[in-house]
């Protein structure tokens, strides 16, 4: 299958890419790993007239700690996160990385590309919701930071303006004891998640929950923060009963569709179970 014809350029500096995007406006689309964009173009679900390939901008290829955050540059592949010692600073990020698609896609696809793609069946945006990430967007006229809740607008829709691109996504590294987990149910490696649940817990010095993050994959028209479940947890002492209540609240925030991967009621139940298990795993790593 062939995508529709397009104009192509591959600048080797960020400034070059931003200048090209500024000139192209709505017509320009960033090509990073291409593991979602190229299949969509081949299936004619996307037909950008101009691609700005950022694969030659090596300065965007990093996973590193910066000012108390873990930052992932726009050219960092999923597999760069799998192999990164710095990424271990965020339990939920390092837990999710090996479960993104398959090894070949992880060698090529990028974290920031997946975040920008806003596919509700994509894993990373649930992780970023749980970790309370910020997206760094740059254009030729400057840079701004967008909280992940505001970045995700809807089904395949982010809040970038024409001429802007994601240059990094950063998650704050919790100062106290913390842990995280990404639980993913999939039919086979490489398939989309049937259900995915990202959880992160930060504990106060007295052992109560200082902050909780829960993001849900493939159960709504966008990756969803389970706010009511997070509210239940915050300030409380962790217990199995509390985690089960949070699971029920996360399930109530889900509105999955019945499809080839399973029926809606079953998926909602998986959300409850995976939230409970994910929180237990997050607590275990926070207290170990």
């Amino acid at each position, binding site marked *: 299958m062939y995508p529709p014809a397009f104009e192509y350029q591959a600048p080797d500096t960020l400034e070059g890419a931003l200048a090209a995007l500024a000139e192209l406006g709505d017509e320009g689309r960033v090509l990073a790993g*291409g593991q979602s964009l190229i299949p969509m173009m081949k*299936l004619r679900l996307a037909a950008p007239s101009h691609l700005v390939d950022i694969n030659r901008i090596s300065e965007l290829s990093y996973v590193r700690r910066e000012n108390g955050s873990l930052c992932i540059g726009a050219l960092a592949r999923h597999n760069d996160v799998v192999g990164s010692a710095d990424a271990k600073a965020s339990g939920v990020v390092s837990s999710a990385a090996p479960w993104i698609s398959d090894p*070949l896609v992880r060698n090529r696809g990028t974290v920031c590309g997946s975040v920008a793609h806003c596919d509700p069946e994509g894993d990373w945006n649930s992780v970023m919701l749980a970790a309370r990430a910020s997206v760094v967007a740059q254009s030729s006229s400057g840079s701004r930071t967008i909280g992940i809740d505001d970045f995700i607008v809807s089904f395949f829709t982010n809040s970038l303006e024409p001429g802007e691109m994601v240059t990094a996504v950063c998650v704050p590294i919790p100062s106290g004891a913390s842990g995280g987990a990404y639980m993913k149910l999939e039919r086979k490696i490489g398939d989309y998640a049937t259900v995915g649940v990202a959880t992160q817990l930060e504990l106060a010095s007295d052992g109560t929950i200082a902050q909780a993050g829960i993001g849900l994959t493939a159960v709504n028209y966008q990756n969803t923060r389970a706010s009511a479940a997070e509210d239940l947890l915050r300030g409380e002492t962790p217990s199995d009963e509390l985690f089960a209540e949070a699971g029920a609240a996360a399930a109530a925030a889900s509105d999955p569709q019945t499809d080839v991967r399973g029926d809606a009621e079953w998926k909602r139940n998986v959300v409850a179970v995976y939230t409970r298990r994910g929180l237990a795993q997050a607590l275990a790593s926070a207290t170990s």
Partner: protein
Amino acid sequence: MQININVNGTDHSLDVEPRRLLVDAIRGDLGLRGTHIGCDTTSCGACTVLVDGTPIKSCTMFAVQADGSAVTTVEGLKGADGLSAVQQGFSAEHGLQCGFCTPGMMLVSTALLEENPDPSEDDIRWAISGNICRCTGYVNIVKAVQWAAAAARNGGEEG
């Protein structure tokens, strides 16, 4: 667009449309038909090649993106001394049935052994998990990789 790629040790200069997929440049422009097109939707791994040593799906990369890169296809696995350890392993353990997935399987296995010369069975299954064998011949594929790992450890002698 004019691109320069090194495929299996030979430099090629090609004139390709930006939308030409790497797999089609390899098969069509260079006539190397060992790289297969299976699903054509980034799902099966039949089109796996190594780009600068890293296994990727060549149906999901544009040929222009490989400009300046070194590509290894199944045709490039054979060395001056004959078949590589991985190729010998697939032969010795009959790591194939219909053979359609075999080039991709051998390329990911080659990359795995480069990085981890003594992989566990789990390591091997994990490494090949992006490549689908529709005959479901995974048991012998895993044995083939184990054979190759043992052979390489024994200095090229049979494992």
